[in-house]
């Protein structure tokens, strides 16, 4: 995989998940959580902008973050299928988020030591954000897993009712 493809993949992950979370703005279970979700979405959109700008720079064909975000066909997106999973209910959103965050946090930490200084810089900035995301989604996985019978069931994959 070329560096361009790899960086594009990182950008697409953040972009698609950010977009999904952004769609929840104003529809959360409580205002405080709405604000938290919007913060995470903002971090991810911000991260996507950094990766996509870098991808454009590496490609050297004059494409900027918006060209890459808006003017590609869907078959050209390189994101993980996980981030495409629908928002579902709050348990679905949090399960998706927790799994992504756990992976993302470890990945970014490692990439902070990249030999490519540009990659290392974006990773280091985003890693700080990802650590917070993981503690947020992790907290919810525990709350829902422990909370009520229903929330425990939803968190462990029992269908919603």
């Amino acid at each position, binding site marked *: 995989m070329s560096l361009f493809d790899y960086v594009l993949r990182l950008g697409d992950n953040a972009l698609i998940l950010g*977009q999904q979370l952004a769609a929840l*703005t*104003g529809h959360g*279970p*409580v205002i405080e959580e709405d604000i938290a979700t919007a913060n995470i979405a903002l971090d991810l959109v911000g991260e996507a902008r950094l990766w996509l700008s870098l991808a454009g720079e590496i490609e050297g064909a004059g494409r900027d973050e918006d060209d890459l975000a808006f003017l590609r066909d869907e078959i050209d997106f390189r994101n993980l299928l996980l981030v495409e999973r629908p928002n579902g209910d*709050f348990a679905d959103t949090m399960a998706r988020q927790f799994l992504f965050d756990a992976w993302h946090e470890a990945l970014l930490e490692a990439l902070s030591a990249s030999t490519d200084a540009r990659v290392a810089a974006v990773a280091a900035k985003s890693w700080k954000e990802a650590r917070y995301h993981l503690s947020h989604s992790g907290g919810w996985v525990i709350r829902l897993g*422990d*909370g*009520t019978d*229903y929330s425990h069931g939803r968190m462990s994959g029992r269908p919603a009712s």
Partner: protein
Amino acid sequence: MYAQMVDTGVQRLRSTEELDGDERHFQERIDAGVRIEPEDWMPDSYRKTLVRQISQHAHSEIVGMLPEGNWITRAPSLLRKATLLAKVQDEGGHGLYLYAAAETLGVSRDDLIDALHEGKAKYSSIFNYPTLTWADIGAIGWLVDGAAIINQIPLCRCSYGPYGRAMVRVCKEESFHQRQGYDIMTVLAQGSAAQRRMAQDALNRWWWPAVMMFGPPDTESVHSAQSAAWRIKLHSNDELRQRFIDQTVPQADLLDLKIPDPDLRWNEARQSYDIGAIDWNEFHAVVRGDGPCNKERLAARRDAWDRGAWVRDAAAAHAEKTTIERKTGETR
């Protein structure tokens, strides 16, 4: 405004001389510019009116997230997406600050939210209009947030401490909202013919609803006198409306956009703009629940709240279990 036609439950305003005891002392403190704090004695009608006004204001912020939230996923660039998301998020924060201010008056946020969902509490008429194009996001920031700022700045000095302090926070954050809206309008107004048309169309649709946001004319504002005496309303509807018009018309001129009012004229004597007749029937219809989006907005809020119920319950249950654990030292 965000709180329109707030009922004070008072039929006739009494002068300070007509009041006695606690009530007189209370009015004298307000007249002297003393801030009322939650623990202080206050007339029941003052408390109830404030709960109505602050909760209406809070509901407006929260319902107001919906029309703009509708465009976050479709914003035309990543920077616009991030900016709009931050803006809509701020409105959620405003709702939260205001609910917290209302709660100092002895009501609970959940009760206030229930009142909204049951259709017993109002929110601003402006949020019952649809956002049809991206230019509407520009028009809302420019006009609606612009109008909100005009209304909110004086409220920072209102008589009730927690409300005034919430407004200070809100106003600080509000400053970028109007600018991002005007920036969107500027780019569209200076863009292609299609973009100009889109900007003009948005202004055409949002102008009158924005003008109506300030509420009925002073001649019909039954409750204003009492609210003014209590210093929870510091300027009349018409005064604020005029301020908004005088500030906004030149901004439209700069963009070469036309205010959709054939009767709009500069009045040299008044040093203000005269405007045409406002269609108050439309305003009252929207307030009554018959605006283009009333049902959709309330349904979206109710739906979010209902779908979140099990989540709120689960978090409460988990917190309770961990508290018991900590008290008894037992682990599960």
